[in-house]
């Protein structure tokens, strides 16, 4: 379908799209790399916020000179692209302490790339009233920093409008997820991931238009999906469709997820508030938590369990990026809790490179056979 191809194109041609946008609008493109980054504020200076993604298309070469072997291969891949000037068009990079790998790799970005603007958003690991106050102040400082650097004014009205467009995107993405509740789901996991990733790489206005077209056309798609074992995928970031493609060629289909390139990205809307910065800061600190948040594993687990119920999930695959400490620490208890509910779980540790994928395929295939075999 043409509209599915449009999402795919945004994902694959992301660098060109960003550069073209920048030339056309003469406005900054700002990279971000944590789902705790309040994109709404960046967008409100009429900049294009884009998520920093890696690539498995090429092996890392330059970053290996600066990152030790025990650093996250996703962080390595993004740094490698930056060192090869693939991200030279960025006018700024915004990061946060929501991950030690990125928090520290940020030093390398600052040191070895020529991006003109860097900003670090101090993100609390708790959501107590004091943390909320701190984060609110932090986002106010961020807003002021953007205004000053890019010579822009962010009014409450602009923020409210941006929030509206972003919330519409969230609502539309949820409708896409609803299509996956059907059996067989109307849309595959691979296709959905391309949609989510593309939403982070273009304006939400454009993305919303495409989503509306998709929702209209897809019920009559000429190539319906086939029944398969219904899976929930959990993990950190997934910036390539390779893994889901494997899942979907060996008899599985991803129907929902707990990923920061999935539900953790868009599930929660920004609520209405007279003070839009307050509304934004609340949304981000209270959203479906990533594992770096303190004492919220229960919440994460409940989210997963609810998804399992709503999407009639038969089994869970956890894709653990090697050296992602917070996810690795959560993994044993998460697995134990799911198994206690008789949900089959497969844990796969992997590196963000092409070479490691062959053995993964065999394991996923065996797992899906096993799930099918369960009477």
């Amino acid at each position: 379908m043409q509209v599915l191809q449009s999402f795919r194109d945004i994902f694959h041609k992301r660098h060109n799209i960003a550069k073209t946008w920048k030339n056309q609008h003469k406005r900054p493109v700002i990279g971000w790399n944590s789902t705790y980054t309040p994109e709404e504020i960046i967008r409100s200076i009429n900049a294009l916020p884009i998520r920093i993604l890696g690539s498995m298309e090429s092996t890392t070469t330059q970053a290996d000179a600066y990152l030790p072997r025990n650093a996250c291969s996703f962080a390595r891949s993004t740094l490698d692209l930056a060192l090869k000037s693939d991200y030279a068009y960025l006018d700024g990079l915004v990061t946060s302490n929501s991950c030690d790998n990125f928090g520290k790799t940020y030093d390398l970005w600052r040191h070895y790339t020529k991006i003109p603007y860097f900003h670090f958003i101090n993100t609390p690991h708790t959501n107590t009233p004091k943390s909320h106050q701190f984060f609110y102040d932090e986002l106010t400082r961020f807003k002021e920093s953007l205004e000053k650097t890019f010579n822009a004014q962010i009014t409450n009205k602009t923020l409210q409008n941006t929030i509206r467009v972003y919330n519409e995107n969230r609502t539309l993405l949820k409708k896409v997820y609803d299509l996956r509740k059907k059996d067989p789901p109307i849309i595959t996991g691979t296709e959905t991931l391309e949609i989510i990733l593309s939403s982070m790489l273009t304006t939400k206005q454009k993305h919303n238009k495409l989503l509306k077209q998709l929702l209209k056309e897809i019920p009559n798609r000429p190539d319906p999906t086939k029944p398969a074992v219904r899976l929930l995928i959990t993990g950190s970031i997934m910036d390539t469709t390779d893994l889901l493609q494997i899942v979907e060629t060996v008899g599985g289909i991803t129907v929902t997820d707990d990923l920061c390139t999935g539900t953790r990205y868009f599930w929660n809307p920004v609520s209405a508030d007279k003070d839009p910065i307050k509304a934004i800061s609340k949304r981000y600190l209270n959203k479906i938590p990533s594992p770096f948040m303190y004492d919220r594993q229960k919440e994460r687990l409940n989210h997963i369990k609810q998804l399992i119920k709503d999407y009639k999930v038969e089994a869970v695959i956890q894709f653990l990026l090697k050296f992602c400490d917070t996810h690795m620490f959560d993994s044993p208890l998460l697995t134990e809790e799911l198994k206690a509910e008789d949900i089959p779980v497969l844990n796969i540790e992997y590196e963000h490179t092409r070479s490691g994928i062959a053995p993964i395929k065999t394991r996923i295939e065996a797992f899906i056979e096993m799930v099918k075999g369960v009477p």
Partner: protein
Amino acid sequence: MTTRLQTLEGFYQNHIQPYYQNAHQAQQQGKPVAYVASTFPVEILQAMNITPIWPENYASVCAARQVSVRLAEIAERHDYSRDLCSYARATIGSILTKEKDILPEGGMPKPTFLVASTAACDTHLKWFQVLSHHLKRPLFLLDIPYNSSGADAENLPKHLIQHYISQLEELIPFLEKQTDTRLDKNKLRKAITLSNRTSNLWLEIQDYRKHIPTPMGARDAFSAVFFMLCIPATQTAIDFYEKLRDELKERTKNDIGKILNERYRLIWDNLPMWFNLKFFNYLNSLGAVTVAETFSHVWTGSLNPQKPLESLAKKYLPNFANCGIERRIDLILNLAKDFHANGIILPTNWGCRMMSIGETIVKEEIYKKLGVPSLILDVDSSDWRNYDETQVKRKVEGFIEILSRKD
């Protein structure tokens, strides 16, 4: 030929063993015992007569006693990844193991509660959450902001200090509830005063190491830092450091060096391989001696008893794990200058992102500014499966070779 400091003779039997014995005793008597993660302001606990137990210290004890890998393997059998912090794995293993007789000092006594802080890494948070889960004891987390600009104590942004204090204000009621006692302001001031005295003595001790030849190396420092790190607000710490200081004073007066022919003065970053402290003797055998460790300099900080909470913020916020790389560069740069170093050792630590990422910048910057070369070594603090001695020694010897050409 190396000389040992008399004050450090029998350090383990004289200081570490009694510390764990006392902790077990306190726990048996129903007194409050808390597990604490480094960068946590332990002074507050000490002001409330809470016995602090440091899983990090215990992991290093397990490594020195050569059981850390066995314990890590137990954690790994419970699906804790082998790539996680080896301190975390060893202590998780020590709690999950059924073979209690393999645990040095009878294991860590079960705590009344746990406290951690995000001022070093996310691993602390997650690791302590896991400990808290398995021990079924509550955990309080100090949610500390990251000092991204790497500002030092004097230049810290105000909002960071304010938030730090606000976190302490939430901690105190938790501690009061757990121990059923009020925090006595006078006792806090006293703890701060003691800790400050300990810190000053420790810095005085470090100062003597600037002397050529240096009277003390890393092996002794990594033992002696125990007081600074674990129980700074005690008279025991002060007494010990006074004795150590006096010995160093005497040695420098008589020019008695750690080694006889001191040729290379090294800075050691981060942690040692606790399972192989003999490594420092090996360095000595090459004519090299460690004159300073970053680890000996991150826990110091001048505390003001009149402003206890603010000074704790200023002590712990700028620790370099919680900072942009500038802070670590500055620290090592200053140590290299002040201690007349001619080489830097930067050990990575397999399970530690905070220490491992960014070492190349440190290496480049120090060389650019001082012409002092650095050596990055792939090691691990307590998991010797991540340590290849042959390779490490080959690298060290190559490095010494480079230093010798600059002689």
